[in-house]
C-alpha cells in the first residue's frame, strides 16, 4: 500500500548544473520501498505545474541503527518540475506518494547480475546493486554518460564491490561511445553455461538496444521504462507500453502498475 507523505526536504546536493540529489524525510515510504520502485512527487504548490512527476527511489537513507528515515532522488533537470526540484531548499515540503510499481526480480548466485545504466538511469541502480550484493550475487555496472563529470557515485559502487564498465559519449572518461559496445563484448565473452541476468535503465534507445543484445545472446533482461505518467496508480492509462500478446499482436499495459520494470523480451519495441 502506498503512502502519501508531506515530505520535508532534508538536503539538496547539486552534482552539476543539471543534476541534483534531493533527500526527503519520508520514513514510511523508505521502509517499504524495494529496488525498482518509484514515487510520484508534486514539486509545486498551486496548479502550475499541476501533475506529480515520477522518480525512482535512489538511496534509502538510514539512521545509525539502520532504520530507514527517508529516501533520496537523483534528478536530472529537463523541465519545470525537475527545475523546481533542483532549486528546492531544505525545509521545503514536497508531497511524495509511494512506493509504487513493480520491482526488479532479483537473481541468485551463481547467476551474475549485470546492470546497464545511461545518464539519470542510474537512479534505480543504487538500491538494486545493494540488494544483489546482499544476496551474494556478483555484479557489474555498465554505466554511460555524456561526459566524465556526469559519471556519478563511482566510489559508492566500487566500495560495494560492483565491477564498473564506464563509457562517455565524448571520451572524457571510460571508453568512448555508448555502453552497448562493451556490454556486447562482455556477453560474447561469457560462456553459455554461466548464467547472467541483465537489468537496464536509461533512455528508450538504450533500453531497446540492451533488449536486442540480451535477446541475441539468450540472456534474461529486465528494463525499467519511462513513460509520461499522470497518476502512477493505474488510474489514467497514460503510461502504456505495448506488450506481445499470445498469438501475435499486442496489448497495452500500464507501466505504473505492471511496471516500470518489465520483461524486455515481452515489450514490442518500435
Amino acid at each position, binding site marked *: *500500500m*502506498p503512502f*502519501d507523505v508531506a515530505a520535508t526536504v532534508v538536503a539538496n546536493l547539486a552534482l552539476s548544473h543539471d543534476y541534483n540529489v534531493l533527500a526527503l524525510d519520508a520514513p514510511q515510504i523508505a521502509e517499504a520501498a524495494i529496488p525498482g520502485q518509484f514515487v510520484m512527487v*508534486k514539486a509545486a504548490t498551486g*496548479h*502550475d*505545474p*499541476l*501533475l*506529480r512527476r515520477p522518480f525512482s527511489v535512489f538511496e534509502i537513507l538510514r539512521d545509525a541503527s539502520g532504520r530507514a528515515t527517508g529516501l533520496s532522488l537523483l534528478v536530472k533537470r529537463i523541465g519545470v518540475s525537475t527545475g523546481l526540484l533542483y532549486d528546492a531548499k531544505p525545509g521545503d515540503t514536497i*508531497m511524495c*506518494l509511494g512506493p509504487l510499481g513493480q520491482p526488479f526480480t532479483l537473481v541468485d548466485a551463481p547467476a551474475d547480475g549485470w546492470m546497464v545504466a545511461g545518464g539519470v538511469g542510474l537512479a534505480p541502480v543504487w538500491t538494486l546493486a545493494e540488494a544483489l550484493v546482499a544476496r551474494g550475487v556478483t555484479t557489474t555496472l555498465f554505466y554511460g554518460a555524456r561526459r566524465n563529470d556526469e559519471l556519478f557515485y563511482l566510489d559508492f559502487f566500487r566500495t560495494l564491490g560492483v565491477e564498473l564498465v564506464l563509457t562517455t559519449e565524448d571520451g572524457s572518461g571510460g571508453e568512448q561511445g555508448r555502453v552497448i559496445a562493451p556490454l556486447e563484448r562482455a556477453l560474447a565473452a561469457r560462456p553459455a553455461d554461466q548464467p547472467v541476468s541483465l537489468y537496464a535503465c536509461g533512455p528508450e534507445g538504450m533500453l531497446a538496444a540492451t533488449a536486442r543484445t540480451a535477446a541475441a545472446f539468450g540472456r534474461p533482461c529486465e528494463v525499467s521504462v519511462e*513513460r*509520461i505518467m*499522470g*497518476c502512477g*496508480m*493505474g*488510474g*489514467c*492509462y*497514460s*503510461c*502504456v*507500453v*505495448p506488450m506481445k500478446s499470445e498469438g501475435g499482436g*499486442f*496489448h*497495452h499495459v500500464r507501466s505504473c*502498475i505492471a511496471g516500470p520494470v518489465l520483461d524486455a523480451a515481452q515489450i514490442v519495441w518500435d
Partner: protein
Amino acid sequence: MGTGQQAPVDLSVRIGSLTIANPVMSASGCFGYGVEYAGMVDLSTLGAVVVKGLFLKEREGHPAPRIVETPAGMINAIGLQGIGVHRFISEKLPELRERRATVVVNVCGTTVDEYAEVSRILSDAEGVHALELNISCPNIKEGGIQFGCSLGGTHDVVSAVRKVTSLPIIPKLTPNVTDPASFARAAEAAGADAVSLVNTFLALAIDIESRRPKISNGMGGLSGPAIRPIAVRMVYECRQAVKIPVVGMGGIMNARDALEFMIAGATAVQVGTANFVDPLIWNTIVSGIGDYLTRHGIKSVDALIGSVDMGKH
C-alpha cells in the same frame, strides 16, 4: 438553523431512483476501474465510483504519449483503452461489490445499438447502480462525440438505452458545443434521469521543435482546473434548462470547487484530474462539504444546489 448547526449533516442526494450517500463521485477514466485505488481509498466512502468507459469489446487505445500537461490542466487522448463489458463484469465487478462501492459504468459505443447492448448487459449484472452514457469523448473518431454533438444523436442514444434498462441513465455531455443546455433538454426529453458534464474540451498542444502534436493522437481533451470557470457556467445553464439533476465536473480540486459547482446547480459532482494529484482527495472534499454546510447551518445539500444569486452586485 439552530439545530442544523449541531446535527450531523445529511449529504445524500438522489439521481433518479438511486440515492447516493454523498455527492462526490470519481470521474470516468480518472480512477481506473476503482479497484486500482482500493489499497488507499475505502471505495464505499465515495458517492459513486464511475469506472472507465467500456465498449462491448476490448480496446487497446492510442499509443503513448497519451497525455501532456498544460497550464493548470492536461490534455489526454487515451483512446478509450478498456477491457470491454464482459471482462469488466467477470474481473472487476466482484471486487467492487465486495468493497460495497456504488458503481456507475461509463458506457461507450460506436453505434446506437452498441450503447444499447452494453447497457443491457450491464443491467443484468449485479452491482451496477447507474449508467453514464459517454456520448462526448473527443478522442475517438467513430461514435462518441458524433452523437454528443447532434441533438438527434443524443436523443437516439438515450431513447435506445432507456428501452433496455431501468437503471438510472446519465448521458454525459460535451462542452464543445454552442449551447450545452439544448443537449440537456434533448436528453431529458429522451428519458434521461440526469445529465453529467463536462467531458473534456477538444484541444491541441504542439511541440515547436518537432512541429508535431505533443500526444500521439494529435488532438485530445483538456481537463483540470483550467477549464473550471467554463464548466461551472455550463452546469449553471443546464440547471436552468432542465428539471432532472445535473452532475457537474471540470477542474474540481477541493471542497470549495465542489461547492461552487453545487451552488451553480450540480446535484452531485465528479472529480477527475485532481485524483491524479491527490489520491486521498475524496475524504477531503466530502468532509469539506459537510463542514461548509454545518458552518452555514444548512441542513441538507438540496438547499444548496442551484442556490446562486445571479442578481447584479
